[in-house]
């Protein structure tokens, strides 16, 4: 029975090429959009995570801080909650570092009378201390300590990014739900159209003694096949788009700490499985309506 169903489903797909192609293309597009969002979220989550891991609070000291004050300040900062490590960067080290970074333009610095850079502490945060509010509180506490001139960290940028991320998250969820429903309706309608276009054939098959399974199985098979092919095509489209666009961004030169990754095989398989299930569900609803005796 199942072999017949598969054979008849393949024949149906070949006989109704256009209808099935439209359906597969629409599923592929939905899968593409849904998995593109997932790709964005996965990478945005990784990016935020990596960025937060790399967060350092730079504490600039004022010029009046003597060595003893610096040692005292270092001790006080070390004792604060969330501080994993603290490193002193003298103004001379900072100057040399700046010279290296600006390379050929370093001659500009030679025109300065004195080193304008202050001494500073570079504070590495504990792994458990990644909450933006906590980081902000810590920065404010440090800023109020004596001999601290200024405190700097990637506060605004992070806030803005996580704001966009959250907005995308909500929009993405809404869009994913809409595309899920759209895919379901498209498959259900395609099956209904196929059944409508073949209502005489179905009637003939019934007259010669076919049971409902004989009529239903090929349709289910075709719907699941549509889901499978649409799912695979959507993932391939995403991979193609990813392979063609991401290398042009040269992300490694922008974010040394972060590498943009494609969706995992497991996730891709889950998406394909989901689109097959959507095919089955769409078929179930349209068949239930159509085959009522």
């Amino acid at each position, binding site marked *: *029975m199942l072999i017949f169903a598969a054979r008849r489903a393949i024949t149906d797909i070949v006989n109704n090429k256009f209808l099935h192609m439209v359906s597969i293309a629409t599923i592929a597009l939905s899968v593409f959009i849904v998995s593109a969002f997932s790709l964005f979220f996965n990478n945005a989550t990784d990016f935020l995570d990596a960025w937060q891991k790399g967060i350092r609070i730079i504490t600039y000291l004022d010029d009046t801080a003597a060595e003893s004050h610096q040692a005292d300040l270092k001790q006080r900062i070390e004792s604060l909650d969330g501080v994993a490590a603290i490193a002193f960067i003298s103004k001379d080290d900072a100057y040399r570092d700046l010279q290296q970074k600006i390379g050929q333009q370093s001659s500009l610095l030679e025109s300065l009378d004195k080193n304008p850079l202050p001494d500073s502490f570079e504070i590495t945060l504990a792994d458990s201390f990644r909450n933006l509010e906590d980081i902000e509180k810590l920065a404010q506490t440090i800023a109020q300590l004596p001999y601290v001139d200024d405190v700097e960290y990637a506060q605004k940028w992070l806030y803005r990014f996580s704001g966009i991320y959250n907005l995308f998250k909500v929009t993405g969820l809404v869009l994913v739900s809409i595309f899920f429903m759209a895919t379901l309706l498209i498959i259900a309608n395609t099956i209904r159209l196929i059944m409508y276009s073949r209502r005489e054939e179905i009637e003939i*098959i019934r*007259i*010669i*003694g076919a*049971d*409902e399974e*004989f009529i239903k199985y090929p349709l289910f098979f075709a719907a699941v096949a549509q889901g499978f092919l649409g799912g695979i095509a959507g993932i391939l489209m995403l991979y193609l788009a990813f392979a063609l666009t991401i290398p042009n961004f040269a992300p490694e030169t922008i974010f040394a700490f972060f590498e943009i990754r494609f969706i995992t095989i497991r996730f891709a398989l889950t998406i394909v499985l989901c689109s097959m299930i959507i095919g089955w569900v769409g078929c179930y609803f349209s068949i239930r309506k159509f085959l009522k005796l």
Partner: protein
Amino acid sequence: MYPDQENNLIIRMFNVTKRYGKMEALRNLTLDVRKNEFVFVTGPSGAGKSTMIKLLYHGETASSGAILVDGMNLGRISRKQVPRLRRKFGVIFQDFKLIPTKTVFQNVALVLEVGGLKPKEIYPRVMEVLTYVGIDDRAEEFPPVLSGGEKQRVAVARAMVGVPEIVLADEPTGSLDPESAAHIFRLLQAVHRSGATVIIATHDQQMIQNHNGRVVRLEKGRMAGPD
């Protein structure tokens, strides 16, 4: 054993009425058909011949009365039993009812696929029947390219391939030229000789007069008696 089987009756209709809205297509029809009987159901257009055929294969359900086919009460069978009932029949229509997207072979083979036969069993059986009706050379053609006579031969092949107990033919020669009609009729007689009960709904009086068979005449949905 059912009393019907003792009496060798394969079809029993008791006071069968079929209404479509207010219109009565059949009224209080009572009829018994014995196994391997050859029956002509005749009458003018609108007499209820096609309705009677549809009621027998459960294409329609009776508004009142009872129909028994080989001991199965059609008023009481479940949806799941309908396919089993229909496999007792081979049905031939005036408009052939072939599937245009399937080849001649596939159209005929479908009956055996529905019956659950394996492909290696299906192929020789279908080819044997196609050869018998004289259409084996067109096995890979699609119905739209066949002539009316050829299409009806395919329909006959489809009706007989499953070796049904009853063959129902609704105006089988209605749209055919005399030569093709004679050929189809000879095939139906052969089906009858092989042991099947054959019921032909027709208003072709010449066909009825030229061949032996019991004649049931319907008029305005009522039994008008034998001719």
